[in-house]
């Protein structure tokens, strides 16, 4: 029994990290109608940046975020300006192509610099006991960090003028323009914010498992599934979707078999989508323009 509880707890701890990695994806879709397939690569890029800072400058992982997040923020602005702003028609479909290209470029670049070898971030090796099982401290630390970022994001979205403008843009882009919101600026900032959060997620990801440039591929499919479940554009959806995904996967893999983890999850996802095609927290009406 305690084993099952432990599996659930591990699912929750990992789910927090996935929520952090996925929140940028959902925000970007909400604001820009762009499916950012490069989110996985941005996460891995962030992980590699943390890796470089930790292994060359011996910089604390959390302090390293003070460098990696602004850097990816700027990169996000550049990507938005260079590629996405130019998409005027058929944004969703074209954005997949464009961001896929960006993703391949990032992955290829990382492969050239670091080679296709696995690395891990230097994480403290202490453990704490949870339902009788030793659990790495780092899992808890990065989970708390993910919670802090998500809480910060919540405050940004719901307690600031920028957040109100962002939400307005999500809910009705034209109306947002008509009240004087510069939606292009909001788009750039949102994409950049998503990239910066991806870098934080990358640090959390890399501190709890080893990764290589190709890790982005497995990651993006999981992140997209989380967003589909939670509902495109919904921050709460990303959180609940990530927790559900990881908890279900871990429980099934403990109770039945790891092979069935994703199967059970996808079966559940299909059932949910039959009842709520917009996902758990998605808003179909919200996207009318």
């Amino acid at each position, binding site marked *: 029994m305690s084993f099952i509880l432990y599996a659930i707890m591990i699912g929750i701890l990992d789910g927090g990290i996935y929520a952090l990695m996925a929140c940028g994806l959902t925000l970007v879709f909400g604001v820009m109608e762009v499916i950012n397939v490069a989110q996985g690569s941005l996460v891995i890029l962030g992980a590699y940046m943390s890796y470089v800072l930790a292994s060359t400058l011996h910089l604390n992982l959390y302090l390293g975020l003070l460098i990696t997040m602004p850097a990816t923020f700027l990169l996000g602005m550049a990507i938005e300006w260079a590629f996405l702003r130019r998409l005027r*028609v058929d944004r969703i479909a074209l954005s997949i192509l464009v961001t896929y290209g960006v993703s391949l470029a990032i992955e290829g670049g990382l492969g050239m610099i670091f080679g296709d070898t696995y690395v891990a971030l230097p994480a403290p090796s202490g453990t704490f006991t949870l339902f009788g099982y030793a659990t790495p401290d780092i899992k808890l630390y990065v989970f708390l960090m993910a919670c802090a970022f998500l809480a910060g994001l919540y405050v940004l979205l719901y307690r600031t*003028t920028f957040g*109100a*403008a962002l*939400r*307005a843009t999500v*809910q*009705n882009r*034209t*109306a*947002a*323009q*008509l*009240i*004087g*919101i*510069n939606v292009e600026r909001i788009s750039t900032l949102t994409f950049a914010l998503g990239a910066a959060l991806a870098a934080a997620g990358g640090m959390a990801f890399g501190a709890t498992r080893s990764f290589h440039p190709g890790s982005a591929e497995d990651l993006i499919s999981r992140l997209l599934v989380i967003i589909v479940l939670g509902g495109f554009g919904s921050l709460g959806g990303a959180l609940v979707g990530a927790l559900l995904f990881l908890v279900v996967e871990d429980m099934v893999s403990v109770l039945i078999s790891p092979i069935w983890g994703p199967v059970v999850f996808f079966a559940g996802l299909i059932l949910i989508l039959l009842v709520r095609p917009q996902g758990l927290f998605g*808003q179909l*009406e*919200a996207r*009318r323009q």
Partner: protein
Amino acid sequence: MLELKGVVAGYGGGDVLKGVDLVVEAGTITCIIGPNGAGKSTVLKVISGLLRPRRGKVLFEGEDISGWPPARVISRGIVQVAQDRSLFPQMTVRENVRLGGYTLRDRSLVERRLAEVEELFPIVRERAHDRAGNLSGGQQKLVEFARGLMLDPKVVLLDEPSMGLDPRTMRTVFESIRTMHAAGRTVLLVEQNARSGLNAAHRGVVMENGVVRLVAPAHDVLAHPEIGELYLGGATRPA
């Protein structure tokens, strides 16, 4: 005060506006009518900055504002209320209206305006904490008007305000348009429901196929035999 000179504009390949010349006099209610695809709504979009004209000029109080982004047009005192539902459905009514003052830096001014607007549109106060998406179509339209007035604009552009409303609600909406005008504002309105629109307006503009066919006092347009037959004859909906 607001003038369009030879405006050509469109989406993608073709031109929807093919050289529009139009003058809107200060302090009037002007109503644009015409068949579907005549370019009525496009005129509003060009003025508000949602669409850049390909050729021609938009002049406001003598200043060339053509191609300005919406935020800049708003700062000059021109506000558009979009066609259909344009509230932010997940936000409360009050949040919506307050966002109308998004471009104002002075927070206390926003609160003052909010109070004024609530005076004018009591529904904003009554349903302040309801989600905007839960209001009926007519109520939403009034909240949209309220949101538009947060900037105390000189010109209000209304894109088919009566669309999808029942006759009773429509009357309330047109009363509100007169209220807005009574405060000295210029109103430029596009109406599919031509008879109601012209009844509320001083001047009528008939558009067809991307150009202005006729500009005349509203009652003249209403009485115009040819126009009546074309756009008003079938439109004997109660007004």
